[in-house]
């Protein structure tokens, strides 16, 4: 009976119902998309590093895990010393550059022969390797997002680069230029910011890591497995704070809209509450009715939020292929719980207020 009454109440005020559902859906969508995009970018970035095919990465101490950036790149000749370590198959020096023209892009300056040895070589979808110092290769996702074709000229770091190849994504960065050009552009001659080390067998990773550590005690030496485990939002400065703030804003929106919606409902339905009281409905019954109504609105909003998030994700992937959105069951549940919690909290005061209404005053309410 209570459920029928709640259902009829919800159907009786379609605009209020729609606004409430939309607010909860936005709340769920915001939580899932913000978390999905931040985690998606992190994981996608990590997977690209994993996709290089190395077992160990060597960086200067204090280098950024996320972008591989450093203020003090290492001499390239270290690669020769690393290559002499037993069980090392190949070493690829990479200089990371950050293009900030228009948008932020990570560019890998690579030495093609060594990078091919470590990674097993690029898969060319169109075109081929560098043909000159100002050649550039882009991955397929970047090409799709920016409508880049082989032969097109792209401007990075205030220089024009000609696209010579479009490669399969997943090898460290989306943009690749010759290592020497990268060194010239940054004034870091014979320097590299990362050495990707591939062992003759992944089982030697620990032994090789220890050997590198004794050779370069001041450097940051991580196996790719360790790197993957470290690539969490905790490692990116202020990212967790940003995510928490966004989640708080989303929950706040849901809370306020449900609060306002239920508060308005109580005012609108004062007389009806008086009728229920005249029939002997106690405070618990009234609170139950209000909270169930908020819960139902919240559940509908959560379902709409899930559907909306899935649709937006599809749109983002189609429109911005380089922007990964990682939706997980874990965060979907969290988003749902937060929305439900916010809604119940928002409905609680109106419910208490309704329960405390004087029946005589309520029945006289116009």
């Amino acid at each position, binding site marked *: 009976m209570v459920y029928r009454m709640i259902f009829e109440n919800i159907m009786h005020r379609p605009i209020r119902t729609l606004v409430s559902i939309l607010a909860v859906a936005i709340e769920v969508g915001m939580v899932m998309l913000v978390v999905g995009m931040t985690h998606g970018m992190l994981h996608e970035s990590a997977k690209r590093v994993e996709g290089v095919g190395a077992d160990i990465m060597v960086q200067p101490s204090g280098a950024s895990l996320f972008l591989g950036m450093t203020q003090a790149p290492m001499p390239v000749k270290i690669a020769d010393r690393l290559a002499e370590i037993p069980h090392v198959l190949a070493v690829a020096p990479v200089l990371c550059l950050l293009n900030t023209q228009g948008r932020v892009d990570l560019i890998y300056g690579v030495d093609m022969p060594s990078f091919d040895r470590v990674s097993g070589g690029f898969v060319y979808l169109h075109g081929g390797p560098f043909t000159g110092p100002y050649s550039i290769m882009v991955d397929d996702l970047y090409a799709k997002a920016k409508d880049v074709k082989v032969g097109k000229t792209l401007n990075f770091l205030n220089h024009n680069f000609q696209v010579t190849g479009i490669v399969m994504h997943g090898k460290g960065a989306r943009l690749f230029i010759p290592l020497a050009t990268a060194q010239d552009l940054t004034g870091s001659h014979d320097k590299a910011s990362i050495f990707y080390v591939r062992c003759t067998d992944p089982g030697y990773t620990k032994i090789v890591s220890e050997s590198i550590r004794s050779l370069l005690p001041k450097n940051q030496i991580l196996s790719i497995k360790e790197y993957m485990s470290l690539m969490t939002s905790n490692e990116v400065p202020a990212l967790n704070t940003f995510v928490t703030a966004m989640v708080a804003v989303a929950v706040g929106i849901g809370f306020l809209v449900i609060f306002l919606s239920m508060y308005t409902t109580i005012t609108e339905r004062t007389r009806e509450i008086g009728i229920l009281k*005249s029939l002997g*409905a106690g405070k618990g019954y009234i609170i139950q009715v209000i909270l169930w109504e908020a819960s139902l609105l919240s559940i509908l909003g959560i379902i709409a939020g899930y559907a909306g998030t899935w649709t937006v994700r599809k749109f983002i992937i189609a429109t911005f292929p380089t922007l990964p959105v990682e939706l997980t069951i874990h965060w979907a549940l969290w988003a749902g719980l937060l929305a439900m919690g916010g809604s119940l909290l928002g409905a609680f005061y109106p419910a208490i207020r309704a329960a405390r209404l004087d029946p005589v005053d309520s029945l006289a309410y116009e």
Partner: protein
Amino acid sequence: MLLSSIFLTATENAAEPARHIGSMEPIISAENLKKTYRIGKVDVAALRGVDMAVQEGEFVAVVGPSGCGKSTLLHILGGLTPPTSGKVLVDGNDFSYMKDAERTKFRRHKIGFVFQRYNLLPTLTARDNITIAQHIQGDGFNPHRFEAVTEMLGIKSKLGHKPYALSGGEQQRVAIARAVVCEPKLLLADEPTGNLDSENSQVVLTMMRTLNRDFRQTILMITHDADAASVADRIVRMRDGRIIWD
């Protein structure tokens, strides 16, 4: 089973005098009942010492001009509001000492209300408006009682309609059904014909008379309509918060 017992009672009672009252304790007993409202900084005395007793099975009409305290008396007797002072016993329970929750529980099981403006829940059908009373009472849906009441009030064909699709008379009959479906000890009616035309008023009054006569339903009805009051067994006249004639 209950349906047959209801009609058996009705048949038996039809042969008896309408008022089956006498030696037992009154169902309503009020002594020096006072109620003062505070409006802004001014105290307004709505009841100034009411003494009355109503026996079980009685049909009492309370009449008087607007503002004489009729509705306040009804609200106190229905446990909707406590008295400021005095004693009020309803079915042996002293409302003066009962907390709000206790009065609510008492109201749930013992009292039915009929209001001038019908006060049906607008989003529910007539059927749901009636069954919600049983739901709130907590004893679950009683199909026999429901059938008997809706049959007697002639609203069976209107049960699927929402209040906006019912005439005033039909709405009031649904409200009466809701009020009596839980077999309350006391039916309190606040100007039940106040919003009805004379034809519908007569129908509603006849229903109430039938409920009283055939089902021995105790009724206390507030009205300012002399014709409506005339269907009651007893008329109590109020003025300025006091009973001036009984």
